[in-house]
């Protein structure tokens, strides 16, 4: 009974914590620009994050080793250090964008000055991370993030063209007006893929397995949580694309603000829809802010070998605690400068694609290593899929910055 409840909560938490500000912005805009035709990228990205999330969780359960320990061990100090710096810069940008997103949502609900909400948000996150244990943080934000289900209901009630939406899951390139439009399509495909496979999700998930003291007996639990949780979570991304296609595309709107997303639930459910959408986004962005912040501290502590973990009191892992506090403050300072959170997250997502292969290669090598993983090593099909995704991500990583420049950040 306890195990079943653990699986159920794990699935709901993974689902509720799947969408953050970047995925929200790119998914809605993908639908607003290209209708249903980018849905296949969500399917492709979801299979990818399931494969690598499962491997990272399995390694954590079998060897007790987190991702950045493996990166340093397998890739060496120099490449490992490069990956650490890049990963934590991306974490910093993402965390700043999530804090900015939370402040915007609070402003939409209460209309106090934006910077006051940044400060209040920082204090709130600091208190939550200091006092709440890991499982409480994960479950509170994950479960309350499920209020985002209002976007799924909205997508259904907006009566999409289901056969056309189903056709969108088959890889396709629609007929577009100009060569530039094809590049914008490619930019959105790369960005959407990156927003689904964001590296911090793997760092956080594997570190979470160690926080929860997983053992090899938890390997099946890990498999169920990543598969069901991430598939259900990706349905939220699908719903956002459908909403973009049904509501924003015919109205010629390309949403640039988190509040624009709430207009879908407003049209379908009125003021209740607005309240649920704002609350759902608050917990989804808030959860992502905490996860990116903790991820940065996990990465650093695992790389240099400091004691780490939320299961330890801050006094038991002082350098780890100092790392996440510093990260939170830096992210707060960055967003206080007045930079647009949506622009920040767009850059963080594009730069994430570049470090994805560096993050996933060591995971694949260890998960396939029989001397290290024994009977839990990858089967042939997991290795094949792992390499397939690594090749795709490398190509995406090489194209990301040129596409960002040529398409003016997807604007055309």
């Amino acid at each position: 009974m306890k195990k079943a409840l653990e699986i159920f909560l794990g699935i709901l938490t993974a689902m509720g914590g799947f969408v953050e500000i970047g995925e929200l912005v790119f998914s809605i805009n993908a639908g607003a620009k290209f209708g249903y035709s980018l849905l296949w990228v969500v399917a492709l990205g979801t299979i990818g994050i399931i494969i690598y999330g499962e491997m990272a969780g399995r390694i954590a359960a079998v060897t007790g080793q987190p991702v950045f320990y493996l990166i340093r061990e397998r890739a060496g100090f120099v490449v490992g250090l490069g990956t650490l710096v890049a990963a934590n810069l991306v974490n910093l940008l993402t965390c700043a964008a999530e804090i900015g997103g939370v402040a915007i949502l609070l402003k939409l609900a209460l209309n106090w000055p934006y910077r006051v909400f940044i400060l209040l948000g920082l204090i709130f996150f600091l208190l939550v991370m200091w006092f709440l244990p890991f499982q409480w943080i994960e479950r509170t934000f994950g479960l309350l993030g499920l209020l985002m289900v209002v976007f799924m209901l909205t997508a259904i009630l907006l009566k999409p063209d289901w056969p056309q939406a189903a056709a969108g899951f088959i890889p396709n390139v629609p007929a577009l007006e100009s060569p530039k439009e094809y590049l914008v399509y490619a930019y959105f495909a790369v960005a959407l893929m990156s927003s689904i496979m964001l590296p911090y999700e793997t760092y956080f998930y594997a570190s979470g397995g160690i926080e929860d003291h997983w053992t090899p007996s938890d390997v099946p639990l890990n498999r169920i949580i990543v598969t069901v949780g991430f598939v259900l979570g990706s349905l939220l991304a699908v719903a956002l694309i459908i909403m973009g296609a049904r509501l924003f595309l015919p109205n010629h709107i390309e949403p640039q603000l988190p509040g624009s997303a709430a207009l879908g639930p407003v049209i379908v459910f009125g003021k209740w829809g607005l309240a649920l959408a704002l609350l759902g986004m608050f917990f989804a962005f808030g959860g992502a802010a905490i996860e990116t912040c903790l991820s940065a501290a996990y990465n650093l502590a695992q790389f240099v070998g400091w004691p780490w973990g939320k299961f330890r009191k801050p006094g038991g892992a002082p350098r780890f605690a100092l790392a996440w506090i510093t990260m939170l403050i830096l992210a707060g300072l960055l967003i206080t400068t007045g930079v647009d959170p949506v622009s920040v997250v767009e850059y963080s997502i594009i730069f994430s694609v570049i470090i994805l292969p560096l993050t996933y290669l060591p995971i694949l090598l260890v998960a396939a290593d029989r001397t290290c993983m024994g009977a839990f090593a990858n089967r042939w099909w997991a290795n094949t899929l792992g390499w397939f995704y690594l090749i795709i991500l490398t190509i995406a990583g090489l194209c990301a910055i040129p596409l960002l420049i040529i398409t003016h950040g997807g604007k055309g």
Partner: protein
Amino acid sequence: MRRATQHGRWLQSAVALLIIGGLGFWFTAEVNKPLGAEDLKIAVSELRSHAAEGRLIAEQALSARLTATFFQTQTSMLRDKAGAVVKDLNSTAPRAGLEEELSRVKAFAERISADLASLSSSFDDRQEMSRLQEDLDTVFRQALEMEESLKH
């Protein structure tokens, strides 16, 4: 052997630096180049999107589906976005022959920005809100036409 490894590392670092430098140079050149027809088209499509969103928000507010706080804040943020387009247009010189188009787009951006500013303070005045909704609808249609003309 050790020398060869060190040599390889230097080479890798040099290639990485060259790629990063090249991308940085490309990015800076793109940002600093004079305003072309393509940039104007991007500006107009942003303005068209803001006008359309303003129109949709007004429509929902008129059906009593929005709170005053959300309405005021979201429309103010849209006005800021339109204002940022005006600022961008003012800060870059256009390519030769595009001066007239640029001044048209600027006037257009200022009109949308002003409409959104008035809209954000119209929550308690349904008549004014309705008028602004119609005006945003008109500028939205003009923006679509302007976008089309800039494509050719």
